[in-house]
């Protein structure tokens, strides 16, 4: 009797982002709109965060509506339809169903059924985690095209009186289609976690406590100064590793697209990375706010839409957040 010889999926040498799209919450929320309950001001918020407005979705829009809008925009940009998608990865921390995964619902809405579909929880690093998985799925031959969506309705998770994070947050979704390529389009992902620092960005209490102990609706909190220190001085070396792993230097890249957490973090990271002035830096946070997993694809689609960078540009992207978790990679923009 002979041992059967398995067939493994045929590998693809390269992958790239084929299209990108996004949607922002329909309401423009100014600093004056959020300053009252935190006894603050437009000037204080601008000085500490660089945020001028944040975009928030109305009550009738849920996180899957945002995800669907971004997914459709990314498919259009790639010139594909749902039928071309073999896997849908939805990164979110604001979808309130434990099961089933939101990705399956979105896949069905966009006509991607029977694509594989699953959600991931990697907070503000979620989009870069998704790109890492999409790259692996495509190059391993297990999917032709993968749709990666970062979608958040952060306004469902805010406490208006919280001075640590709530006033930063916005709603939106960004998505990218990843497929096979004739040339390298996604550099190696440098990623990781540090669960010992989980308390730095967290939900106030569990849903179980909310229901069983009448603890009320959970919201988010962060230790802002400690997160700032970690994000700048621990994440800049991660970004440098992603550049090195991709075989490029800061001089070679056209754009830097960090998670849009706080303009002060972005400015300090630029200093640490010694980015040349020729590098276009994504600063979508000023108008959109911090949209967690959606912030990098939203910032990317804006750079492309406004012509700040051209298709084919080389971009360094890095996500970092609650976990703590982080991921960085160099990508060729579609």
């Amino acid at each position: 009797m002979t041992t059967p010889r398995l067939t493994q999926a045929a590998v693809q040498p390269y992958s790239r982002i084929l299209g990108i799209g996004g949607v922002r919450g329909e309401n423009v929320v100014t600093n004056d709109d959020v300053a009252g309950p935190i006894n603050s001001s437009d000037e204080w918020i601008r000085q500490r965060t660089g945020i001028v407005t944040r975009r928030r979705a109305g009550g009738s829009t849920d996180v899957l509506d945002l995800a669907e809008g971004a997914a459709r925009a990314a498919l259009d940009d790639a010139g594909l339809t749902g039928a071309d998608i073999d896997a849908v990865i939805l990164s979110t921390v604001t979808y309130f169903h434990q099961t089933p995964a939101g990705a399956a619902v979105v896949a069905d809405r966009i006509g991607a059924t029977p694509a594989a579909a699953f959600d991931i929880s990697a907070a503000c690093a979620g989009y870069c985690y998704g790109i890492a998985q999409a790259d692996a799925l495509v190059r391993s031959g297990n999917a032709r095209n993968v749709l990666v969506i970062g979608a958040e309705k952060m306004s469902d998770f805010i406490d208006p009186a919280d001075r640590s994070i709530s006033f930063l947050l916005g709603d939106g979704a960004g998505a990218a289609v990843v497929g096979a390529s004739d040339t390298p389009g996604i550099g190696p992902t440098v990623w990781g976690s540090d669960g010992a620092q989980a308390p730095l960005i967290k939900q106030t209490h569990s849903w179980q406590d909310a229901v069983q102990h009448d603890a009320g609706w959970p919201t988010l909190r962060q230790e802002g100064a400690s997160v700032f220190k970690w994000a700048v001085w621990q994440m800049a070396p991660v970004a440098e590793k992603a550049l090195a792993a991709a075989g490029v230097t800061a001089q070679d890249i056209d754009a830097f697209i960090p998670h849009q957490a706080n303009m002060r973090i972005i400015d300090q990271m630029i200093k640490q990375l010694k980015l040349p002035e020729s590098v276009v830096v994504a600063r979508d946070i000023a108008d959109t706010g911090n949209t967690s997993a959606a912030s990098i694809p939203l910032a990317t689609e804006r750079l492309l839409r406004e012509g700040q960078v051209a298709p084919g540009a080389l971009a360094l992207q890095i996500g970092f957040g609650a976990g703590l978790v982080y991921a960085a990679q160099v990508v060729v923009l579609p």
Partner: protein
Amino acid sequence: MAHSEQEILAGLAEIVSEETGLPTDSVLPEKSFTDDLDIDSLSMMTIVTLAEEKFSVRIPDDEVKNLATVGDAVAFINGAQA
């Protein structure tokens, strides 16, 4: 090689000046970081991190809130030197 308190004060003044634009001679031991030098929590973290690098010491995040004045920071860094 340990730094003297004078050297720490001078080095810290340079870091504060770089971060805030204030002249180095305004960074005196009795000055409060928040009330006198108008340094917010994120700028304080930048100063702390640069001081850690300059003086090869570790300043835990939990300790930063206890560093109310420039003199507090100088004393902590002096004590933290190996």
